[in-house]
C-alpha cells in the first residue's frame, strides 16, 4: 500500500481509536493525517513524472503548503467557471474531469485550513462527526484522482502545485 493510502487508513483509525469519548489528541491527529494523506498523494503523483526515481524524494521537498493552496484555489475557480459556463458544457469526459478536479482542489484547500487549526489551535473543540466528515472528503478526493489521473488537466494541476513560474 502506498504511503498516502496508509496515512488515510491511519486517519480513520485515529478518528475511531476511542469507542466512546474520543480524545482531542486523536481527533486532531486524525484531521492532520487526513490532510497529509492528500498532500502526499498529490506530491507522489507529481514526482512520478520525474524520470529518475532516485531523485523523486528530493523533488518532493520542493512542494510547499502555501503554493499548493494557491494553485488549488486557482484550479477550483477554473473548474467552477467551466462547469457553470453558459451555455452549459456538453456532457462528456471533459466535464466529468473538471468535476473531479474541482472536488480534489476544493478538498485540498478546505482540508489544509482544517489541518492548520487541528495542529495549532488549542481553543477549537473537535468532534468525531467533524473529523469523520473531513476524512470522507479526502476519501472522495482519492477516488476522484484515480478516475482522472491520466487526463491532461489533472497532470497540469500537478505541475501547477509547484508554484507560479513567475513567482507571483
Amino acid at each position: 500500500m502506498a504511503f498516502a493510502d496508509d496515512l488515510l487508513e491511519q486517519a480513520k483509525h485515529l478518528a475511531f481509536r476511542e469507542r466512546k469519548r474520543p480524545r482531542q489528541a486523536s481527533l486532531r491527529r486524525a484531521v492532520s493525517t487526513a490532510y497529509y494523506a492528500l498532500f502526499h498523494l498529490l506530491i507522489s503523483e507529481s514526482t512520478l513524472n520525474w524520470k529518475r526515481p532516485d531523485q523523486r524524494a528530493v523533488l518532493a521537498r520542493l512542494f510547499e503548503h502555501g503554493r499548493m493552496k494557491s494553485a488549488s484555489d486557482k484550479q477550483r475557480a477554473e473548474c467552477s467557471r467551466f462547469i457553470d459556463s453558459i451555455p452549459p458544457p456538453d456532457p462528456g469526459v471533459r466535464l466529468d474531469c473538471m468535476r473531479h478536479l474541482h472536488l480534489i482542489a476544493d478538498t485540498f484547500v478546505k482540508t489544509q485550513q482544517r489541518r492548520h487549526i487541528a495542529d495549532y489551535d488549542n481553543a477549537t473543540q473537535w468532534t468525531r462527526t467533524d473529523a469523520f466528515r473531513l476524512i470522507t472528503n479526502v476519501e472522495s478526493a482519492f477516488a476522484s484522482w484515480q478516475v482522472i489521473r491520466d487526463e491532461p488537466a489533472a497532470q497540469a494541476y500537478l505541475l501547477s502545485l509547484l508554484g507560479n513560474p513567475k513567482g507571483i
Partner: protein
Amino acid sequence: MDEAQIEAGVQRAAEALAPDVVRIRFSLGEDWTGDPSVFFRVVLSNEASRFEHLGKIADGIEAKITKEGKPEEMGLNYYFSFRSEAEQADLREAAWA
C-alpha cells in the same frame, strides 16, 4: 462583503435542510493564509450525523449553503465544520448554540 446577504442565504438553507440540519452559524474572518473567509458551523440531527449517511448528507448541505450564501461571488473562501446535536449538548459551545 455583505454579511446580511450571507445571513439570509444561511436562513434559507437551514429551512430547506431541516430536519437533517438543526442550525447553521457562521463567522467571517481570514483563513491561515490571510484570505477573507466565511466559516460555517453546522449542527446536524443525530440521525443525519450517523457515519453511514454523513458523507452524502454533508455534501448536499455544503452545496445548498454555498448556493444560497454565495460566498464565492463575494470573493470569500468558505469552510464547513459539522457536529451532531448530541456532541453539541456535550460540549455546549456558545458559537454553535
